[in-house]
């Protein structure tokens, strides 16, 4: 779990999900941690292209994140770098990967957010360390391991 991985099953075909993920108009509909509005979304959707999203949270605070598209395979895969503009919240740079897989009811979306660190760390991330922290986290939280 040093990469955060989330999975959603969506009742929509992969091309529609891909557009929702990669177009400025699509991004404006979902980006952000609560129901607050997206104030600005720009996306130059090509490898090396930049995106920028500004949103307001329900508590009134405004935040902006930006990044660069690293890989684009329509309608299967998007990889982008990601950081907070200004870097107050977290100065780090992350790597976000969204994979789409066609399933009978639509699309299975697998989302991964990993710290973009040096090569060594990145390789170990890719070596399959995902998900293995859960138990340890339960230890530290003093609770039972959850599923």
């Amino acid at each position, binding site marked *: 779990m*040093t990469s955060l991985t989330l999975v959603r099953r*969506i009742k929509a*075909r992969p091309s*529609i999900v891909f557009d*929702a993920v990669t177009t400025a108009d699509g991004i404006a*509909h979902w980006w952000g*941690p609560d129901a607050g509005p997206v104030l600005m979304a720009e996306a130059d959707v090509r490898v090396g292209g930049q995106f920028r999203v500004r949103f307001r949270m329900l508590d009134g605070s405004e935040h902006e994140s930006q990044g660069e598209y690293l890989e684009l395979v329509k309608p299967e895969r998007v990889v982008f770098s990601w950081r907070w503009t200004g*870097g107050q919240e977290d100065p780090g740079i992350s790597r976000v990967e969204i994979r789409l897989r066609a399933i009978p009811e639509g699309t299975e979306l697998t989302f991964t957010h990993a710290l973009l660190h040096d090569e060594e760390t990145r390789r170990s991330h890719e070596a399959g360390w995902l998900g293995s922290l859960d138990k*340890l986290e339960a230890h*530290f939280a003093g609770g039972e391991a959850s599923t």
Partner: protein
Amino acid sequence: MVNYQERLGRTFFALVDPTRRAMLARLERSDGASISELARPFAIGLPAVLKHLDVLTDAGLIIRAKSGRTVTVRLRPQPMREAMDWLRRYERFWSSSLDRLTAYAESMEAEARKKER
């Protein structure tokens, strides 16, 4: 603040390895352990054990205290908490975003089907 990312990276790197995770879990259950106690459950030699402990020390996840001839290893939970905070923060952010993405994509799918009819 560059250090923050450095630190996180080091913590995550230290946690990649199952032996090191088991060592931390062992330390979490007790108030410190000697190096031989830590080594006991694993079929690896002392040099390998010491190497793992070095990685954990670099990440600030353990501290070693020497008293006489015994070295006592203790857990230092702060880096772990920091790593967990990082993960939790992004989990909240993205989990909520992906829920709305799901709803939005499903509404676009419904519209597309209407048009196709």
